[in-house]
């Protein structure tokens, strides 16, 4: 167990280092884009005076290196800074609303994203595990083929296409579910779930194939090993062989794939958000890149990177815990 703590600490340290590198890369990249916040927000109205005035207000007239370290110093103290987009108007009225802090702006959006990811995971993970196990059990049968073809076609189609197909069948032709998923804070859980279902189903179709096929492959891989042969010779039922004997040993790769897909659900669902008008963090992120709102872009990237790092760490920990040989290394 001691080694486990050491691994966690080591990984967390590396994770922090990664976050630092990510923030440098993102900051540089956003600065290299043509135009800056002042020009983006003023559009056709970007007179030199107005641009200079906004730049001065936001400190954009400072050299990038200084701005980066100012931002970094804030982050270390837990302050993600102020969103340019909101600061722009508060700065000359002299008031600061809760919205102007990056935290205040991201928090509700991030909660929505986590909600969508949670609902999707609650559907997709059990479904893909069950399908994977059944496909392994009845491998090369008609069932196996149908499941494979269906999941592979859904993963091969672009997300927006799947989304529109679902809208067509579940919202337009048979009005079962709302096509707009504009959830908001004072909405009851029931309505929220109802509105989130279509995007969640779309995402389920996107992520199922990956997890299901990994489950199937990992189990089938093990089915050739001698100890499974032994179990079969004992006369155990095929279902029991798979669930009790094969699955525990196949968990490590499956957990890894699940973790990857969960991270994808948190970071990569902009298209689905746009189609369903879901107020998640992805839309905020794209808006912010468009506006060159560097503090928000940075904060989003940190969240995305942290999601990947933490989920991967969790996956590794769980594979270690699921494997006695790794749990008790000699």
């Amino acid at each position, binding site marked *: 167990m001691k080694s486990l703590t050491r691994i966690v600490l080591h990984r967390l340290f590396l994770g922090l280092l990664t976050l630092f590198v990510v923030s440098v890369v993102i900051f540089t990249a956003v600065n290299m*884009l*043509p*135009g800056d916040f002042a*020009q*983006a*927000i*003023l*559009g*056709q*109205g*970007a*007179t030199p005076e*107005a*641009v200079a*005035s*906004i730049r001065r*207000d936001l400190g954009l007239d400072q050299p990038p290196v200084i701005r980066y370290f100012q931002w970094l110093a804030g982050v270390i103290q837990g302050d993600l800074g102020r*969103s*340019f*987009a*909101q600061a*722009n*108007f508060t700065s*000359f*009225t*002299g*008031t600061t*609303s809760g*919205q102007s802090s990056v935290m205040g*702006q991201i928090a*509700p959006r991030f909660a929505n994203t986590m909600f969508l990811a949670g609902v999707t995971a609650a559907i997709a993970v059990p479904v893909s595990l069950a399908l994977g196990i059944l496909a392994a059990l009845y491998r090369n049968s008609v069932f196996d083929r149908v499941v494979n073809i269906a999941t592979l076609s859904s993963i091969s189609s672009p997300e927006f296409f799947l989304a*529109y197909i679902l*809208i067509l069948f579940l*919202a*337009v032709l048979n*009005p079962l579910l*709302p*096509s*707009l998923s*504009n959830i*908001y804070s*004072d909405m009851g859980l029931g309505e929220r779930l109802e509105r989130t279902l279509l995007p969640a189903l779309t995402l389920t179709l996107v992520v199922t194939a990956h997890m299901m096929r990994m489950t199937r492959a990992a189990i089938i891989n093990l089915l050739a090993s001698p100890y499974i042969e032994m179990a079969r010779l004992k006369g155990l039922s095929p279902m029991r062989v798979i669930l009790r004997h094969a699955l525990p040993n196949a968990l490590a790769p499956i957990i890894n794939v699940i973790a990857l897909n969960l991270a994808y659900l948190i970071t990569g669902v902009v298209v689905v958000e*746009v*189609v*369903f*008008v879901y*107020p998640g963090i992805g*839309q*905020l992120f794209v*808006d*912010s890149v*468009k*506006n060159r*709102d560097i503090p*928000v872009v940075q904060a989003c990237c940190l969240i995305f990177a942290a999601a990947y790092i933490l989920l991967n760490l969790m996956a590794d920990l769980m594979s270690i815990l699921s494997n006695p040989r790794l749990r008790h290394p000699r």
Partner: protein
Amino acid sequence: MTRISRRGLLRSGAAVGVLAATGFPVLAQAKRGGRLRLGLNGANTSDSWDGRTHSDAFMVNGAHGCVFDCLTEVSATGELIGELAESWEATPDAKTWTFTLRQGVTFHNGKAFGADDVLESLSMHVADGAKSAAQPIVASIDEMKKTGDHQVQIVLKEGNADFPFLMSDYHLLMYPAGQIDEAIVKGIGTGMYEVVSFDPGVRFVGKRVASHYKDGKAGWFDEVEFIAINDSSARMNALLTGQVDAVNRIDFKTEPLLKANPKIKIFEVTGNQHNTFPMLMDVPPFDNLDVRLALKYSVDRQELVNKILQGHGAVGNDHPIGPANQYYAKDLPQIEMDPDKAKFHLKKAGMENLTVDLRVSNAAFNGAVDSAQLYQASAKKSGIDINVVQEPADGYWSNVWLKQPWCAAYFSGRATEDWMFATAYEAGVPWNDSHWTDARFQELLLQGRKELDSAKRRTIYYEMQQILSERGSTVIPMYANFVDAAASGLAHGETLGNNFQMDGSRIAERWWFS
């Protein structure tokens, strides 16, 4: 961008006497009730209730059309009527304007509306460091003073017959004096709907105030909900599946499909919005009038309207005054595509053929790149080789527009001729994107501004349009319509406002559930 315009009489400045505000026509069939749900684009996370920053449909409909009022309003039929101002009068030189304000109006927080609110609300546009699109309007004011609790006197630096029209600009919202900061954060105005919740870039919910000075003339819904749907397919979907009652800015490509749906009504108006190709007239080869004319004769305007706007627009005549303006010169000879004339002018300029760069991006207007390519193809016939250079959409307005000798741009049009010319065609103004200067044009501009006589103004503005059409340095091939759609359960008055999308951005006031 200001997209206010009007038809009909310029009642405001027509006479010195007091002109009573006429109000809306009484609509017997309109009835109260229901929650209007709109799917609108143009929403941003940077949105706020600060009128100085408004530029797109979501906030213009929300602030100008629901929560806040201006001094004056352009009615659906294009007349100027009083909103918070009851009446106004001018001295004969159109320099001093006196506005009498409506009495008994309160803000949503209970504060009574009066002269101080007007002075402070206007001043915020010229405050130090303020970035207001309406800054030039307020900057033209020399002195503002309170002449009574409900009367203000505004003295202009130069006479301006159109001044009351300018007061209907959607940036010039009336805020409660002394509480402007709070009003900007919470959205406290005098409008028909007060803010229930507002999530920038996501959603706005408003509730009808219990009593309002427009009662019986407008404001039929109990509640309004605006949902930010920037993606056009998602907007169409929301309308088709009944998630919203109306949407703005229809995708022209899917318009025929929507039209075929019996549950949907399309509403379309031609306004002053126009797409342009400005040439810098002090940069060779555009400093040669014959080169400019050759280029003007080389574009197939009707083709652009048909293919880029899918017919939802009208051909332009190289001047920025649109069909929604009062002094629109509709009998001005239309410039047609004519390769022979183009070749003639090219020859006169001493050239056999001509190669020019045209820098475009779809940031300039939707379909700008395709338009440039069509222009390129049609100009080949006159021996002109247009080299279409695609520029990145990011930073287009800062790096290309006003800087490159020939590029693409758009203007949403202005309520009055003078305002439009003063924005982009007056010598030396920052947005003069063709560096246009012409002695006669400039003389007429100053003359027209002070003129209160409608007939004389007509002659002046006709000549100015003619000058731009014949000598101007901007190719204006087309006017783009405002095309919106609504569920068939919604009803509206006889005429739709053509100064902005969604019935002049007043759908929440003017429409009702039948």
